[in-house]
């Protein structure tokens, strides 16, 4: 059982890599080096700030886009194009398929982020010529970004399990945007009355809350991160991903594959 999940995961990873996903790293590297060089020449004492802000934001955005498109592509497409039939005619349970895909996707993104992280630190070194203790915070920010990716992947899988590739991408991206403003949504809920209040509150809790994960600005100003926050975010990401994956499994197990 576990072996099958692992095989599906590694196959997913291989498909993603061969699909030239990792070429995005080239674009990323280009962007970052260009920015670093430019900033190094302007030298208004905020080079480090810009590199960190730009670098981490780019890691986040590139990753989200990849997560959504690869995530959708590797599952929705598989269902549409019937590569799935030959897989499911083997002693593979449907839930193993979903879980395996998730780990394959997550793995792809972690590897991608790893290379991007190297790029960010390289750019940082180029502008600052040394590393300080506070730069360790960047690793925390990257960790939070990876947690965000896990959530997005699980959502991509959830939507793929019942929706077409295009719609799945649209839903996943929308949830990413809404999730970034989730804290405001909860604020709105607090100001509403009656039924609207309950509906909006429910939505605010269902939507992935990314507000707590975005510490890019604060670490750029070298604010420390509470250990409690790290724990909280880890748990939240795990539970949320579990929720979305359970939903995906539930739908996929009971779906007629036409």
């Amino acid at each position: 059982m576990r072996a099958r999940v692992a095989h599906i995961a590694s196959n997913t990873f291989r498909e993603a890599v061969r699909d030239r996903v990792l070429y995005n790293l080239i674009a990323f590297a280009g962007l970052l080096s260009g920015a670093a060089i430019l900033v190094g020449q302007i030298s208004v004492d905020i080079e480090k700030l810009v590199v960190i802000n730009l670098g981490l934001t780019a890691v986040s955005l590139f990753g989200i886009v990849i997560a959504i498109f690869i995530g959708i592509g590797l599952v929705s497409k598989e269902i549409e194009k019937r590569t799935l039939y030959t897989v499911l005619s083997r002693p593979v349970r449907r839930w193993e398929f979903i879980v395996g895909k998730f780990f394959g996707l997550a793995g792809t993104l972690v590897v991608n982020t790893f290379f991007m992280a190297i790029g960010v630190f390289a750019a940082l070194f180029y502008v600052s010529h040394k590393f300080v203790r506070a730069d360790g915070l960047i690793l925390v920010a990257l960790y939070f970004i990876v947690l965000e990716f896990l959530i997005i992947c699980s959502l991509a899988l959830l939507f793929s399990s019942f929706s077409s590739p295009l719609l799945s991408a649209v839903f996943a991206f929308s949830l990413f945007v809404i999730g970034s403003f989730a804290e405001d949504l909860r604020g709105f809920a607090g100001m509403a009355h009656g039924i609207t209040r309950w509906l909006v509150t429910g939505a605010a809790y269902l939507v992935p809350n990314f507000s707590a994960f975005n510490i890019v600005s604060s670490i750029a100003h070298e604010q420390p991160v509470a250990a409690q926050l790290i724990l909280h975010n880890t748990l939240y990401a795990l539970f949320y991903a579990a929720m979305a994956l359970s939903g995906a499994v539930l739908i996929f197990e009971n779906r007629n594959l036409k």
Partner: protein
Amino acid sequence: MPAIEILGLEKTYRVGFWRKRQKCALRPLHLQVEDGEIFGFLGPNGAGKTTTLKLLMGLVFPTSGWARILGKEWTDPEVKAQIGFLPEQPYFYDHLTAHELLNYYAQLSGVPPKERSRRVDRTLQRVGLKDVHGVQLRKFSKGMLQRVGIAQAILHEPKLVFFDEPMSGLDPIGRREVRDLMEQLKQEGKTVFFSTHILSDAEALCDRVAIIHKGELRGVGAIADLTSSVQGKVEIVWQSTQVPASMKALGADCHITGDTVRAIIDENQQDAAIDALRRERLRLIALTPVRTSLEAYFVEKLQRAETSAGRTV
């Protein structure tokens, strides 16, 4: 023990925007396939062949009914280790090579790690795919993909294979090769269940066939039985360059080719014809019972269904 027992499998889809209308893809089907035979599942496009296969594979859930495959419940995942499936117009992961793909499938089917490489090579050879190392599947032609499809279906030495239109996309040589392969599988003791709308293939291969049309079973049995119709015609061949009057008198349908004449006559005129030839001192070459072709049987069954009153789908 029959290889496949289908007991009343039925599938009705709800269509339309509000999912109110019902479309019956498969009426309750009762069918048995015996161990070690090649079984053909025939029917025109849209008859329900693929639906049946998908039901058996667990890709689609039946509205009612159930089935047994190799003695176990058809939803039992353990069954899957012993069956192979080739879907219609298969499509595979674009960016893998044939070796990688088959290796992946072998992993999923539980083939022991030591065995995998050997099996993959052997199977690729068997389906006639040589020199495909390092070539990604997106570069394969349709025929090559079909062979890959067959390869993944037999890779893990299943006892029972399901082929959905196995000949599609193949040129005549390819089709011959697949036919030979299927014969080989039968000789290895495997059961082959395949669906097709090409009757000549079925005629050449199958021990038994079932004919399905508009979701309903129209006939099952050995080809010989099905086509040994009540027509009772006989073909008589003799050496001559012309048709004697006595033969013409029998109302025979005669064709002259070189120095041979062929004629189709009723079975009960057989003796009279032989006597006539003897009288004329003509040399009898052959006397063969005429079977209705499967095609004729097929068309007849379908037409009868069309003209049946009160049939709704």
